[in-house]
Each structure stands twice: as C-alpha cells, then as structure tokens.
C-alpha cells in the first residue's frame, strides 16, 4: 500500500509499478473527458489536437464560467465546480482511448469492467478511484483550465486542466489483473444467500 507522486505524462514502467490499494497524487496536467467526447472520438471519427500519450483522463463534465481570455484563463473558461461522473457507462472506450490516444491513467468513480481490466493489463494502464460526489474538494486541486478542444460538445468538451496535488487517489484497478471492484462484487454476491435467508426469504 505504497503512495506514489506522479507528474504527468507518465511512462509504462511507472504505471506497472502501481498495485491495487496503493495511492497516487498527480501533478501538472489532467484531461477531462466524458460520454459525448468519446462517442464523437470513437464512433463518429473525430480527432483531437491534444497529445494524450502517457496522460491521465478524468471522467468529468465541469461547471464552468465563460470569461474573456487572459493569462489566468487562457481557454476563456474559469472553473466553477469540477467533479467526477460514473465510469461504467464509458467502459467500451477504455481500449481505444489507450490504443489510439496512448492514455495510461483513467480517473473515475464506481469502477470499470473486465474488458477495461484486460486493456490495462495488455497496454499498461491503471484506474484511479476518486470519491464521487466530492467535487467541491476536487475543484480545489485544479489550478486552471488551460485549454479546451471539441468545445461544441460543451460541457462534454475535451478539457485540459492544470492540477496541483490532485489526490490522494486510490489505485482500484491495476495492470496486473487486480480490481478492487471485482473483489467487492464477488464478496457481495457470496453474501446474497445469507442476507436473503436473514430476511426470511425462501430459497
């Protein structure tokens, strides 16, 4: 259960060193991505001018305020409230995001499934769990909205955030086949019969 401080972008070796139950704090750059962003990238053939190789993406669509472009707000957006959405809906995009764009870290809540776990194992990736519904806190880890692409999809644009001390985040799925979600799901399923028996439900 080691703690890791990582500056993005990261190398495959840095990701392979992470194990479930480790914690990670990220520095520098983080990309925001969501359902519509990935539907347009992977189903509708659109591309991004951002280089995501070795980078971290977070499943998000932020609350932002449109402002004049300035050194403080180079993208013309000020952050209002930035948090994390449920990852499960974006399960099928994990592999293309890694294969086509070189992403190595996905941050989300609620976990991803077995196909993502295989992609993490095959390609060297990791899923970091953030605590969903804690956006006020998360917003304090974001210094600036540096840039934005695919902004016709707003708020589901592709966002580039500058971050500081982003975490600690929990390594919940690693590149060695480890998944805390799968462990919990197995454990919960094994308790079902006893819980129903306790409720007097006839098998």
């Amino acid at each position, binding site marked *: 259960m080691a703690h890791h401080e990582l500056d993005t972008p990261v190398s495959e070796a840095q990701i392979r060193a992470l194990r479930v139950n480790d914690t990670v704090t990220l520095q520098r750059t983080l990309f925001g991505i969501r359902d519509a962003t990935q539907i347009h990238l992977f189903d509708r053939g659109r591309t991004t001018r951002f280089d995501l190789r070795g980078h971290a993406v977070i499943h998000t669509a*932020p609350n932002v305020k449109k402002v004049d472009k300035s050194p403080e707000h180079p993208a013309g957006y000020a952050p209002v409230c930035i948090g994390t*959405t449920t990852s499960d809906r974006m399960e099928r995009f994990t592999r293309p995001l890694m294969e086509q764009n070189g992403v190595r870290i996905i941050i989300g809540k*609620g*976990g991803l499934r077995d196909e993502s776990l295989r992609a993490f194992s095959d390609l060297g990736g990791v899923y970091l769990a953030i605590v969903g519904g804690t*956006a*006020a806190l998360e917003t304090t880890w974001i210094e600036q909205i540096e840039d934005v692409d695919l902004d016709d999809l707003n708020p589901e644009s592709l966002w580039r955030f500058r971050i500081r001390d982003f975490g600690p985040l929990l390594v919940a799925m690693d590149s060695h086949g480890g998944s805390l979600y799968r462990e919990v799901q197995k454990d919960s399923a094994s308790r*079902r019969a006893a819980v129903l028996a306790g409720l007097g439900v006839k098998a």
Partner: protein
Amino acid sequence: MKVDLQSVEDAAKELYIRALKVLPPDIKQGFARLDASETAPTAKRVLGTMLTNIRVAEDTDNLLCQDTGVPIYNVWIGRDVDVDGPALKQAVRRGCERATREYPLRSSVVHPLTRKNDHTSCGIEVPVIHIDFSDTAEQLEIEMIPKGSGSENNSFLKMAIPAEGIDAIKAFVVDCVLAAGGKTCPPTIVGVGLGGTSDLAVALAKRAATRELGTACADPDGAALEKQLSAAVNQLGVGPQGLGGDSTAFAVQIELAATHITMNPIAVNMQCHSARRARATLTPQGVSYGF
C-alpha cells in the same frame, strides 16, 4: 393569499443553487451515524473524504457535486391560496433557467434524441414540476431536488405477481442494490415504491428516495419492512463508492399505495450520498428557506 409570481421565480432560482450547496441536516446526521459504525479502513477513508467535501463546499461557497442533475420542483398549494396555475409553472421554469444562466450552472439537460443542450437546464417537460395540495392555510411550498444521474441511472421496476409475495420485494431490493454496486455513489438512500400501477410505483420510489432521513413510512407494515431491509442491505458489503464496507445505504425507505388483486409492483429508485434538497415556504409574511 395572492401568490406573487416574481417571488416564485426568484425562489425557484434560489432553491436550485441552495440545494446544490448545502446538504440537509438529516443527511449530515446520516453521515455521522455511518462514520461512527463503519469498520472497513478504506470505507472509513472514503466517508472521511465525503465529510471533508461537505465542509469545503460550505467554506468555499461551492457546489457539493458537479452534477446539477435533472431539476425537480415539488409544489404544494395550501388552502385559501389564489394562484394562476399555468403562470406558476412558467415562473418555476424561468427561475430554473435563470439559476443556470446567471450562476452559471452546468446544464445537464439534453433532448433525448438529438442530445442537444440548450444550456438552460430546461427542455421538453423539464424541469419536472409536480403540483399537489396541502392542508395548510395561506402557504405555498416549493421543494427543489437536483436528481443526479449516477443514482437515477440505477432505477428498476418489477411487476411481480401476488404468488411471489413479500419475498419478491425483499429479493428485488437486495438484487437492485447489488446490481447498482458503486455506480450510484453509495452510501445511498434506497427508495422503494410498492403497489399502485407501474407509473405510481416508480413515482413512489422517487418520493421514498428523496424523503427526509429518519422519517418512517406512514404505513406500519411498510415501516417494519423499511427497518428489516435497511439492516439487510448493509450486510452486503458493497460499501461507500462500491469499494467495500458496511455503509452501503443510509436507509431503505418505502412508500406504498393500494394495488390490484393480481398485481405486486416493486420499483426502486436510488438517491446518492449527495442527497440534496431545499425548500421554500411562501406565506403572506414573505419567503423562508429550509430543507
């Protein structure tokens, strides 16, 4: 009492922003209760982060969660209240749109086919506005609930049959909690709607999921089942965020209605740990805000 529609519009705006920022006291007490009894170390840390977030939101005057949800307004019109009904609904809608544009909030509302976002938090039939009547004289109450999608996407309906009995209800609730896992942002309030028709059961489940914690189902049999199921779902080990632990749900809450001799409808709707709601009371003395 003659209702001033500008006050309704202003309240509808204020309520949306208030609901997004400050959790009701019953939910905070629910957190304190779960935090005190949680035994798993990871779960304990997750609950600690949620408690920190509640403080940070209040200290920085920010939204608790980025999900502004689907806006729902529940309106109760008391006795001796003079109000133009259609104009009341328009005033609520204007308030919802103003909150979104003026704060500004993320509009989370899109057309279901084109996925077009008007950036107003409004669209066809949205905000959802329910209008009912109350027994209180000269009073108009408005409750605002921003219903987050992570929990709303885990909504379930089963048209069970009488021969399956209460066992079907118990098994369905347990299976819904297992199916939802960490996707609903647990700890949740598991709302269960029993009886009625299919649509009424679903509406009751939403009412149950957004009911104040610590209150009981008005029907004694429903209240007894709430207690049993509340204890049971927290033995499943799903835990906060689906990462394991004792704190899967604050409670299972039930609302029920009479049903047909051949029917046994069961609906489940979940509310995430950011169980936000706010209330405005309009009287001849003015507007007051609470939960």
